């Protein structure tokens, strides 16, 4: 029996259909069946995924999928608008993502992930090293972060992200009490119990080092902040977070002195305007796009986001800002707020520490990834290239984020049925 919340799935379908029809009207003044192919396939995939999860995970959170699918529909519309040729590709990736999401339902149990925690960690490091060795740069982004397999390029970082969160959830659950209790105090400050933290620090350190080597700052920042969020959830020690953030800023400052590309990012963050024709160009163009959009936006396909380099990936929010206005960008932000809120509700209702930590970690990944790129685009923090979950063009990103949704669905189902 479909419930009222299932009707919410009509939202993303209608959004994508309207978006594609509008684009066809503006571009070709013709709407034919071909126009709606993308929307029909999306509707089909979404329906199949909903039916499947209703059958396999009947007690799962009913809001997660509509929210994620709405973000994905906006993403597919914007991809079609910004790089028409990539629209169908993004559509296929969304379908693959929905498929991957349902596969999570086939896992024996969520606790199974916990059992193989060191396997995941090893796999993550292995993938990182493999990227360093075999990575390619098919799009000329300046960093070799992709495996190119035939016509498809995969960004392993998106999978590494998931593996690390699973590992962290399992590890932190195991040593949670020690992390909370033990440790020396210096004055009022609790020092972290280093022996227990060491494995995580080593692992994260290796991951960060590899990212540095790849000149990929976004994921490095994402992992560091996700680690801090999960460490706080596990330990309740704000001092860890503060220390971590201080280390992060110091590390950033050091990197800024050592690496040119980091230095550039920091300088353009302080003042993008004085180098608006060179280093600050991308950021300044994004800010112009936001400003030109105003409250209601120029309208889909009516703006000029083409001036922003990498607009369909890292800077998709600026294109949304220009064409859909503040109304559009706030809607996107609200969807993320809802998604993250659902994620934490699932974590709160979890009956095992592992599930709670995993749900919190997965939600934090989505939240922090969105925050890092949004804040970077809005000149709140130095810009680091990273996708806006579900919305930016990018297959690996879409699939990984739907996997997160799948995991969250799975956790919510298991905790509700236990």
């Amino acid at each position, binding site marked *: 029996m479909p419930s009222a919340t299932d009707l919410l799935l009509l939202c993303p379908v209608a959004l994508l259909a309207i978006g594609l029809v509008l684009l066809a009207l503006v571009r070709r003044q013709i709407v034919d069946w071909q126009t709606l192919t993308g929307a029909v396939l999306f509707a089909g995939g979404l329906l199949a995924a909903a039916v499947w999860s209703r059958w396999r995970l009947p007690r799962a959170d009913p809001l997660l999928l509509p929210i994620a699918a709405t973000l994905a529909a906006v993403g597919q519309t914007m991809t079609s608008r910004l790089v028409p040729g990539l629209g169908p590709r993004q559509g296929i990736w969304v379908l693959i993502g929905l498929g991957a999401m349902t596969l999570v339902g086939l896992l024996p149990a969520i606790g199974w992930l916990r059992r193989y925690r060191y396997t995941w960690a090893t796999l993550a490091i292995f993938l990182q090293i493999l990227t360093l060795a075999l990575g390619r740069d098919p799009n000329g982004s300046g960093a070799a972060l992709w495996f190119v397999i035939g016509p498809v390029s995969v960004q392993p970082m998106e999978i590494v992200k998931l593996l690390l969160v699973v590992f962290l959830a399992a590890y932190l659950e195991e040593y*949670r*009490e020690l992390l*909370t209790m033990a440790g020396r105090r210096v004055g009022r400050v609790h020092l972290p119990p280093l022996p227990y933290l060491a494995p995580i620090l080593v692992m994260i350190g290796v991951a960060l080092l590899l990212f540095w080597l790849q000149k990929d700052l976004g994921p490095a920042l994402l992992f560091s902040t996700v680690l801090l*969020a999960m460490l*706080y*959830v*596990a*330990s*309740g020690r704000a001092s860890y977070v503060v220390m971590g953030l201080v280390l992060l800023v110091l590390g950033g400052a050091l990197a800024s002195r050592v690496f040119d590309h980091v230095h550039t990012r920091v300088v353009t963050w302080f003042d993008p305007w004085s180098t*608006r024709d060179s280093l600050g160009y991308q950021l*300044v*163009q994004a*800010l*112009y796009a*936001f*400003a*030109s*959009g*105003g*409250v*209601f*936006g*120029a*309208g889909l396909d*009516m*703006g*000029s986001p083409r*001036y922003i380099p990498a607009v369909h990936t890292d800077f998709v929010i600026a294109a949304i*800002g220009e064409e859909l*206005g*503040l109304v559009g*960008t*706030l809607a996107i*932000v609200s969807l*993320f*707020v809802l998604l*993250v*809120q659902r994620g*934490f509700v699932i*974590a*709160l209702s*979890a*009956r095992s*520490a592992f599930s*709670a*930590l995993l749900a*919190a970690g997965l*939600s*934090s990944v989505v*939240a*922090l990834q*969105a*925050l890092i790129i*949004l*804040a970077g685009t*809005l*000149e*709140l923090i130095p810009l680091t290239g990273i996708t806006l979950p579900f919305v930016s063009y990018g297959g690996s990103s879409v699939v990984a984020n739907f996997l997160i949704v799948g995991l969250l669905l799975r956790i919510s189902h298991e905790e509700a049925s236990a």
Partner: protein
Amino acid sequence: MLDDLRANLRRTAVVLLACFGVIAVALGYWQVWRAPDLGQDPANPRVADERLSQPRGRILDRNGQVLADSESTAQGTRRQYAEASLVHTLGFHSERFGDTNLEAAYDAELRGERSLSPLDRLAQQLFHRSPAPNDLVLSIDKRIHDAAVEALGKSDGAVVAIDPRSGAVLALVSRPFFDPNAADEQLAKMQSDPAQPLFNRAVQALYVPGSTFKTVTATAALDTNLVDLNKPFLCTTAIKVGNYSVDCKNSQHIPRLTYKQAYAWSSNRVFGLTGLLLGFPKLAPINGWLDDKPPGPYPWTEAGASVRPSGDVLIDYARRYGLERSIPFDLPVASSQVKRPSTEWTPELLVQTAFGQGEVQVTPMQMALIAATVANGGRVPTPYLAAELRNGSASRQLHEPGQFFSIAGSGDTARTLRDFMVEGVDNGYAARAAIPGIKVAGKTGTAEVGDGTSHSWFIGFAPADDPRVAVAVIMEHQGSGSDFATPAAQRVMRAALAVQ
């Protein structure tokens, strides 16, 4: 144990969601607060894109005649100007060089970015509606403009015609000019042209005014009751002021004359001495001191050296007319000056200043305002070019007619000056300004420029009893005011009064 975890979870969630709140605020900052300035920033590529494709409102004269229009081409819109001679009035719109003059000053209005009604303006901002270009209606009358261009002929110079009651500028011509339709291709060449076709002489050039400046000296003398208008005096000899000698050559055919006649026949000695005597109000009436035989040694000569002559009164009256200060106008007007700030007054300099030589430098606009002030009862009208914006049936007035920015003298003084200027046309050097059946007021000027040639000047207005047009004409290096600028001005006034 899970309870601790839940408390931590809640706090983590709150912090993360608060971060999204910060993002929302930042979005509001860039998309609402900074939208006006960044949206219009010339470096924003959208601004240039828009301008290329945007229609631009027309510029019309006061009778609705089209002076500038935009036509669509494959590359975007192209500005078309009715005539090259309008360039100094309108300025020009160029994709390469940007906008100048009125095209620059009313750019947003012509593009229609700011709609005429506040409600529409709000809707425009909210919904990003494409702007509706407004037409800019000028105070210019194309027929008077054409007459002014013709009247200048091949001479370099300027004509400014003003409606003295409203301040509406009816014609503003500066020669040489260049074709704004070819600005993109020719501007670079024009910049190095020695004739300076880009230079707007009507408002920017500073010329020696010659005898037209006697109007200012006369204003000071009349307004301070320095002269008895009925008592004639004798003017036949030259008088030495320091090493400088002022003569009665201009009025030599009337040895015995009244102050009015001295003005009409432009006596340098009378007005030179007036300038010096302005500093000695106790000597009023000064008629005896203007005579061949003064009642005693001049107060500024050796014998009376205890009192130095002061130019303060003259400067004060000049300031009242708008000299030495900025004149409010749609185009930037150079500030006319009585003397260089660094120079000290000497009797020689003061006497030359009083009849418009020395270091006096004026814009044609300033001289037109002096004529308009006499016509307007002593009030200096605020000149304007941009009258209103029109969009369909909606319109917005840009300047309120009939404003004045200064008072040069009393109504009585203005009336007396008007009589002086009428005398100048009826029985004086400005005779060629006469229009049959109409009482015309005028003053000529022949400004020596130091290279042996003279600029030809005329200022005046008509009809004298109900002035509808005041003009200033300058023709560079042409010779006497009577023979060149005066008939030219007559053509302009005739066109303005629509008399054939």
